[in-house]
């Protein structure tokens, strides 16, 4: 019946994704997984939430289905829908239903971005029922013990529209992520980009400067991801100041004054 069956293998994480633990998050996640409790990852963008999920999927040997949520993502995008093939209709599972069927880890990234009706389908999966009702086919998918639901959310957005409801958040074990400590962050940059430790140190310092500006005109400081981007550009031979501008300053803001100040900050280090 599956018109578009994706084999379990395609979702398998084959090689170990590089991840530097910031604390005891690996043990905590494993414990949650063993106890079949869903997990909520909180933290600013680009601090390693998605990488952590990939790493855990590899560690636990489960396929990982990642859905990046956007503001037009509906419940049927997650659960599935009928498609028309030659003169007949065929049911196609959405990523969530698929993950339940194959006992994968389903990671819903930035869940608050999705339409409100998506929470309705998550709720029965996220408590001890662990079922996914598929309204349109009349099925009730029961999740196997291997299945795991994880969602992420960035509490930094101060919009009332983008807040997670209590009824949702109280179903999860919450794990807080933040930017790694400077030394760790340097190590990550070196490892990810292959740049020298000296430059990595400056990049982390620069990130610290932009994080000082959070709430004073910047919504968010430079993330570890941006630092890695900048470092990669430098490894390719781009001038450090240019790389910082392109990878970090311009990515952080469009405000002319703020941009000029951030560029000056990067220039003061390189």
């Amino acid at each position, binding site marked *: 019946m599956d018109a578009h069956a994706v084999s379990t293998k395609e979702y398998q994480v084959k090689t170990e994704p590089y991840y530097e633990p910031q604390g005891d998050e690996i043990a905590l996640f494993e414990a949650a997984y063993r106890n079949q409790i869903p997990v909520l990852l909180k933290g600013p963008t680009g601090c390693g939430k998605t990488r952590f999920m990939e790493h855990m999927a590899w560690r636990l040997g489960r396929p990982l289905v990642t859905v990046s949520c956007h503001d037009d993502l509906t419940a049927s995008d997650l659960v599935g829908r009928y498609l*028309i093939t030659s003169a007949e209709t065929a049911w196609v599972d959405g990523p969530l239903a698929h993950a339940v069927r194959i006992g994968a880890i389903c990671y819903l990234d930035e869940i608050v971005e999705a339409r409100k009706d998506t929470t309705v389908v998550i709720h029965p999966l996220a408590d001890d029922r662990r079922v996914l009702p598929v309204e*349109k086919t009349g099925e009730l998918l029961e999740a196997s013990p291997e299945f795991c639901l994880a969602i992420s959310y960035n509490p930094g957005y101060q919009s009332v*529209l983008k807040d997670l409801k209590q009824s949702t958040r109280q179903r999860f074990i919450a794990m807080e992520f933040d930017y790694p400590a400077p030394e760790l962050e340097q190590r990550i940059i070196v490892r990810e980009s292959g740049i020298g430790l000296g430059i990595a140190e400056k990049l982390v310092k620069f990130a610290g400067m932009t994080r000082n*500006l959070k709430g004073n005109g910047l919504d968010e400081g430079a993330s570890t991801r941006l630092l890695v981007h900048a470092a990669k550009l430098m490894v390719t031979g781009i001038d450090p*100041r240019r790389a910082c501008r392109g990878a970090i300053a311009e990515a952080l803001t469009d405000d002319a004054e703020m941009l000029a*100040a951030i560029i*000056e900050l990067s220039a*003061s280090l390189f």
Partner: protein
Amino acid sequence: MTIPVAPLSTAELEERLDEYLDPVLSSRRTAGGLAAALAEFGRSQQEFVLQWVGIIAKTNAELAFQFAAQAPEGLRLMLPDDLESWIIQAMDTYDRMGLYPASAVFHDSATYAVRARTRDSSVTFDDVSGILEIFVRGLSGRALKLQPGEEIYTDTGTLFLPASLARLPNKEGNFRLYKAMAAHQWAQTWYGTFRADLSEVLAGFPDQEKATQLFHALETVRLDACLAADLPGLHRDMQELQNTLGQPAYPDAWNGQLQALRTPGASVQNTIDALRALYGAAIPPPLCYQGTLQAGRAEQVTAQRAAREKDQFRAALARLLDSKEKHAEPAAEPEDESKSRTERLRVERTPDPDRPGRWRYEITIDGRPVAPPKDVRSTMDSIVQDLGDIPDDYLVAAGDGGYQQDGGEKNPDDVWKGTYHEEGAFLYNEWDYRRQHYRKHWCVLREVDVHPLDDGFVSRTRVKYAASIASLRKSFEALRGDERLLKRQKNGDNIDFDAVVEAYADMRHGMEMSERVLTKLRKLERNIAVMFMVDMSGSTKGWINDAEREALVLLCEALEVLGDRYAIYGFSGITRKRCELYRVKRFDEPYSDMVRSRIAGIKPEDYTRMGVTIRHLTHLLSQVEARTKLLITLSDGKPDDYDGYRGDYGIEDTRQALIEAKRDGIHPFCITIDTEARDYLPHMYGAVNWALIDDVRRLPLKVSEIYRRLTT
């Protein structure tokens, strides 16, 4: 070819000047001399001067007299454009500081002419302060303010920078110089220049002034070395500036001392040692970004801040203890008094692995670490920045009531009780159409709450208009964003069977099968934020005020059905220094009993200064995320205020404020009951963005109706 117009004669000029300057002329002070000096110039130059004398005289006749006196000199030195900005500068100065400094600007035409000539290369404080303030904050440490000043120094709370710089031949260079000055001052606050008791040290020398200068020169060496280590890029910039504007020249004999100052980890103590060793030597010329060092002022500000932060810190410790005690089960044994609250507190100091050479501080209570709240952390950081450590006497939790000191928000009303000051108020520019320039920071606006009134007004209104409210609700309900099933879509959630059957039939007939065979449920959301700006001027007294309040009640009832986000503010004020905005309902506030009694509490106050209100509400509205933003004014007449804000002046400023609002993507609309509105509203709001209600009694119902029409 233009026909040359003959210049005005001295007599003609005098007559015109007399007209403008009359209030400041006397039998002993006539316009004769001014006229004679102006008579030498061509007609167009004369007219230019006369025109501005007229404009300035409207602000201040004495200033106009000063201008007329200096104008001939100005005409000789400057081009018309520069002349104009010279005049505007003087008038801005008058607005800000008064007559005497403004006249000084006119008397200083030579300096201004030089500056005008170097305008292409010079950079002003206003150009750079925004960037540099962010820059300095990014460098780390406590937030520092930037201010233009005669002297270039820091008092550890504010960095004082020159009002403009033209020492280098291009803008970029002058910006670098600004940056270097700011960075040097920041370095003083960050690398602990004032951690020693400088005044005392310097007072120990016979010539204190000389000692200060020498100390500053040596300290600069130390700070430059710190910057070189931590911020090499910045250091490079500063080196380049030195290459252009003068290298430091230190005698060879200093080498040993300089070496010590440049060693990593050198502190201000090293500088003091070097000062003692080298006192008596000639002072090297100051570096281009060095400025001056004002130990006394820095210590004064530091002392004030230290006292405040000590209180804050100790109050925070007390709060931490309180919350600890509240949560802990009753102590097993009431420990003796000597092991009081204080003894349970410790601040542990451990070397910070992330910042070698620095410490990490951790507060512990009974040996267990507690995470200090964010504000406490920044207080701790600031204390360490000033003192290099957290002294033991800080570790005493404040006693009961100790932490009320200096806490809480200031009451806006208090401002008017004492001498006037602008703390906590919003400052806005105002457009002066005669000058064709903004008057900077001209209006002082404050937000205050409407005093709620529980007199049953709202419920009476609801009863009075019960039938209308019901029909309003119904018609607004129809507007509400509904889910709509879109058929024949390319993408969608479900199959559109009609379309499939059709497509299938088409295919059987050999035609191409349509791709549009799905249905999609789409929610049509109204994404509207609307701000109501209600006239609370004295002229609304009586039935206009009643009608306004009734209109608001009906509107709220209707808008609650619709779900649009809305806010209501009343405005009034008297003079530019006392513009008031009355909060009735903020965007994030629900339509509660409180809001209802505030609506009832709207009462006529003073005058209508519309420009500043629009600017502030624009600012509030632009912080709301919405696709459509509306600013609706309920008014009963022209803009009008006590201090000359009337007639064309008020109308032009309001118009300018509305243009600014439109630039921010806000649609302004005005509902008025002024039957003369046709004469000025189209000019202010545009031809279609206003509505006139000629019968006040119909206002309540009309407002909702107009709103409905506007948003569909």
